Structure formats: C-alpha cells, structure tokens
C-alpha cells in the first residue's frame, strides 16, 4: 500500500507564529485530506485537496500531486490550533503518523 510520511513529528510554537506541516506519499493519488484531531479525539476535516491550493481562514493547503507531497500552512497560530494533524491519501485512506502541534500562549 501507499506509504505516507509526515514531518515534523512534533512542533511547538508561540501563539501568533506561522508553521508549515508536510505530507509525503509514495505513489500517485487522486484523494488526499488533512485532518485535525482535537484533544477529545475527534477528527475534523480541514481540507480535501488531491491537487492545487485551498484556503480557509488562517489555514491553507497545497498539494503537488506530480511531486507526491502536500503542505498545510497555519498562520497566526492560536492555542486552539493545538492537537495532532494528519494527512490521509488514496482510495483506502491511508494515514500518516501525524504532526503533534502545541501552541503556547
């Protein structure tokens, strides 16, 4: 199956800082999503982005399918952004190990 690698595994920021999370995948895909898992364990959809760029408020994402990576940008981070960010790819939705983000006040 497709291999999915996320980096960095952990990220600690001060409130207001910007960050970039990366998702690499081993094969071409036509399905990619970013999720945020909140402290209560619920997975929340952020972006469905098999290619191109999307923006939603302070978050944006870019997928370069031909180069097999996707980036999630978080600007002006807030403490509520803390949690684990996952990307999932492929028809059978394989997940990376996640990036744990901690935003300090």
């Amino acid at each position, binding site marked *: 199956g497709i291999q999915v690698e996320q980096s960095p595994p952990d990220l600690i920021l001060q409130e207001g800082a910007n960050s970039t999370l990366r998702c690499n995948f081993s094969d071409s895909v036509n399905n990619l999503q970013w999720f945020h898992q909140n402290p209560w364990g619920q997975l929340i959809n952020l972006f*469905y982005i098999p290619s191109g760029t999307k923006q939603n408020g302070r978050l944006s994402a870019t997928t370069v399918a031909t180069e097999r990576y996707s980036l999630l940008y978080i600007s002006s981070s807030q403490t509520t952004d803390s949690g684990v960010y*996952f990307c999932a790819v492929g028809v059978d*939705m394989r997940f990376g190990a996640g990036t744990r983000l901690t935003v300090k006040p």
Partner: protein
Amino acid sequence: DVKVTQSSRYLVKRTGEKVFLECVQDMDHENMFWYRQDPGLGLRLIYFSYDVKMKEKGDIPEGYSVSREKKERFSLILESASTNQTSMYLCASTGGPFSYNEQFFGPGTRLTVL
C-alpha cells in the same frame, strides 16, 4: 449535518469475549472504514468496504472481521478479544469509489480488554 455515530464511547471487555463495534452513517455513503489508533502509531486501517456485503482488508486485519449487511451500517467484530486489542477504534465514511469525497469520522470507541 453529516453524521457518523458509533455505538459506544467507552467499552470494557474481558479476554476471550466476542466484541461488536457498530458504526452508522446517515449520508448515504458507499465507503466505510474501520481504523484503530494507538499512541505514536497514527491511524491504522483494519478493514474497509466499498459497498454492501463487500469488504477489503487493510493493514492489520488479523483478529478482526467485519459485516456490512446494510449500506448505512458497518460492524467491526473481535471474535475473541485479546489485551493487545485495547485501543481507540474509529469509524469513517466517504462518498463513492469513483467520486472521492471528504471522509467523515465518528467520535471513536475506546475499548479496554482486561
């Protein structure tokens, strides 16, 4: 509002018991998934289903089976629970095999096997 529900948030079972985890979606989605999540390992796919009565093994199917008799319901079965199956179990659904949509998750079931 889209909804994926799971039968229990917390479940405690004994070794050797047969365990049923139920998942129901109300979005008429064709695809449904079961994952388990363990610290440091992310989400690992156990089984998924493209249609009623159809199933595919994921990365870690050993010790599990599934049932999809109706489109809206996807059940995960632990035939004989073991302590190494203590984990968070997450169910998800998406649209169709040729029209990839957003994947929606249920709240999870935290299973403890004693």
